[in-house]
Every structure is written in structure tokens, then in C-alpha cells.
């Protein structure tokens, strides 16, 4: 009974929280999500051991909603994006999203001992695009700068690129995609991504 009452009272609270999140600034969003994910990893032995199902669930529920995969795919495609049919664009976005989720699923358990330093945000009022800068500190190693390119959407701020130590995810894939499209066309790229995603997850 008490539990039900508690839920009843908590429900409107969580609605308030959702409303507050809609106006959350991009740097606050990055911080909240990063700390949330780090806390989850630190608290869960399965995640630390790299339990793929659980890691994937964590990524899908906590990280994926904050990324704009369509824009990431469009940027990675460069000028080839416009020559792709809407159907191809959808397939590419789905495959690219799967690839990125898989990659992060393999890597996330390594982050347990990391701490993140959040740099002050340089942003003018009315900006719809910003870069949120962070620095990941690892024990006894030099820190790695990780920047997030973010855009304002009706659905809150979303990331469309991650730049790790100066290496942009989107640009790196633009090279990959461009070379494949040159030799085997857009369908060739869809196929290459599909094959990659169907392959075994490396251990």
C-alpha cells in the first residue's frame, strides 16, 4: 500500500524531472549522462565483466536517446548523402547506429576507473550548436580530451559527433564510407556495414 502511495507521489515528480531535462543545458546533459553511466558501471559487476547483453541495454537506455544518428550518418556520408534514396538513408542510419552501439558495448566496461573533468562551456545565448569539452582522466595515464558536438533539437540537446583526442568519429567514418562508395556504391556500403554488424563481436 505504502509502495503504491510512494509511486503515486513519485510519478508527478518524474514528470517534473522530464520537463526540467528538456531545458537542460548541453554541458549539464553531458555531465549528467556521463556520471550516470559511470555510476552504473561502478555499481554493477556484470557491466565491469563486460556482460554484452547488459552493457547493450545500458547504452540503449542511457546513451542512445542523446545522439542524433541521422545527422551523424549524413555527416559521415558527406556529399554522398544526397544521392542516397530515402530507403538507403534509413538503412545506412540503422546500420551505422548498430555499429556504434556495438563498438561502445565492447569498450564501455574499460571505463570503470576513469573520471571525467568537464570544461566550462563557451556558449552564446541563442546558439543552436555547441561543443562540450571534457577530459577523461585515467589512473597514471595522460588525460584524453573528448569533445561532443551538440545541436539543439525540440527533444533537447543531442550529440552528432564525438572527437577523441582530435579524432572525429564522423570524419573517420567519412574516409571509410567514401572509399567504399567509390568502389562499390551506396548499396555496397549498406552491405559492408550489414556484414560488419552481422559478424561476431570481437572479444
Amino acid at each position, binding site marked *: 500500500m505504502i509502495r503504491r502511495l510512494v509511486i503515486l507521489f513519485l510519478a508527478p515528480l518524474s514528470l517534473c524531472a522530464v520537463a526540467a531535462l528538456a531545458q537542460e543545458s548541453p554541458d549539464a546533459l553531458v555531465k549528467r549522462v556521463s556520471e550516470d553511466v559511470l555510476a552504473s558501471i561502478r555499481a554493477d559487476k556484470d557491466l565491469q565483466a563486460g556482460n554484452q547483453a547488459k552493457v547493450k541495454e545500458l547504452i540503449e537506455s542511457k546513451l542512445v536517446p542523446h545522439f542524433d544518428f541521422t545527422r551523424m550518418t549524413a555527416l559521415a556520408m558527406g556529399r554522398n548523402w544526397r544521392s542516397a534514396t530515402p530507403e538507403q538513408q534509413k538503412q545506412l542510419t540503422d546500420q551505422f547506429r548498430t555499429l556504434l552501439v556495438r563498438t561502445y558495448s565492447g569498450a564501455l566496461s574499460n571505463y570503470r576507473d576513469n573520471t571525467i573533468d568537464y570544461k566550462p562551456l563557451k556558449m552564446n545565448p541563442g546558439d543552436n550548436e555547441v561543443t562540450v569539452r571534457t577530459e577523461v582522466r585515467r589512473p597514471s595515464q595522460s588525460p584524453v580530451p573528448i569533445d561532443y558536438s551538440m545541436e539543439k533539437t525540440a527533444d533537447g540537446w543531442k550529440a552528432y559527433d564525438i572527437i577523441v583526442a*582530435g579524432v572525429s568519429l564522423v570524419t573517420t567514418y567519412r574516409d571509410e564510407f567514401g572509399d567504399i562508395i567509390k568502389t562499390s556504391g551506396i548499396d555496397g556500403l549498406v552491405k559492408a556495414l550489414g556484414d560488419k554488424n552481422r559478424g561476431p563481436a570481437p572479444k
Partner: protein
Amino acid sequence: MNALHHILTPALAAVLLAGCAATPSRVDPLEPWNRAMYSVHETVDTAVIKPVAQAYVRNTPDPVRTGVSNFFGNIDDLFSGINDVLQGKANRAGDAFGRVLLNSTFGIAGIFDLASMAGIPKDKNDFGLTFGKWGAPDGPYLFIPLFGPTTVRDGTGWLVRIYTSPIGYIDEWAVRWSLWGLGYLDTRAQLLDSETVLDTAALDKYRFLRNAYLRSRRYQLYEGNPPPETEE
């Protein structure tokens, strides 16, 4: 002998195949050769070095491995400091030499990274970047088996470092070579995690690694503000 044969035959086959597939470009004029070297590397690494590194990680307690990494990290700091000086970065040189001093003494030859605990930041610097600051161009990209991605300039930097490393001054050859070996193993073991990322992320591992290497070096050279790349 037989084992070597097993390693070399697929390696040679891969070299021939890779050589055909690649066409050189402006970023990588030696691509066919590099891809061949990459195949050799992959074959030897998969057969021998990676399993040894994995066994090392599995069978060595974490604190011991951390101590080993710190020991070699202390030598890294020494070279970072030297290159900070060569590039006229007094503050960073101070941090680097402060770290070496603290860790070499109270940290017992670098095994304990007291400097990090004391909050002295660790930064990387190397001869390749120094040569770059002095105006030396990268030169062609190179993939060297059992060493990894580099360029003519960065590779030259590494040669300078290997020739001047304190480990080279150890008289006892057994100790000297054990330390070279352990340092290599430590580096390889540290790469196991990022390698998983590369395996999952890359459609073409050779190309992915090359582009990531060249971009990240550019970023380091320009200290986080590289000029925009020219479109091809």
C-alpha cells in the same frame, strides 16, 4: 621451423593480396607496401604476441601490472620533459621532471606513481612532435610490423628515443633485454582494450588506424587547434 612456416605462408599470401587491393594516395603514398607490412604484423601478432600479452594480463595481479606500467611511464615522463625543454615549454617541463624526480625516488624507480596522487599532471611529448615543431614535415606514413603506425618523422623520433633510453645504459645484457621485453609487453597489453574498439568499429582496420593515427598526431602537433584540413 614448422611453426614459422605456418606463420609465414599465410603472411606472404596476405601480402600479395593486400598489395593488389591498394592504390597509393596522397595521404599514404606507400600504401601497398604498408598494407603488406600490416598483414605481416597481424599474422605474427595474432599468432604470438597478442596471446602472450593476454596471458600476461590474465596471470599478473593488477598491482604488479600497474607497477610495471608506472615504471615505464616514468621513463615516458623523462622523455616528455626532455621534449618539453626542446620545445621551450618550461611549465610542462617542470611538471614532467617533477614527476620523474618524485616517482624515481619516493616512488621507488617509478613503480609507484606518487606524482599523479600528488596531482602533478602527466602529459605526453616526444621527439616526433619536437621535430614537427622545428618544421620537419611528417614524411610518408609507415606501418612497421610489431611496432605499429608511424611516419618517417615520428619513426625517426622513436629511433632517437630508443638510442637514448636509460634502459640502453644498463650494462647487464640480461637485465637490459628483459626490460626491453617487459616494456614491449606492457605496451602491447595496454593496447588490448583499444584494439577491441578498432576490431568492432573499423570497416577496414588498416585505413581506420592510419587515419586515426595521422589525425591524432596532427592534433597533438597543433596542441588541440589544428588548421582545417584541405578537401581532396
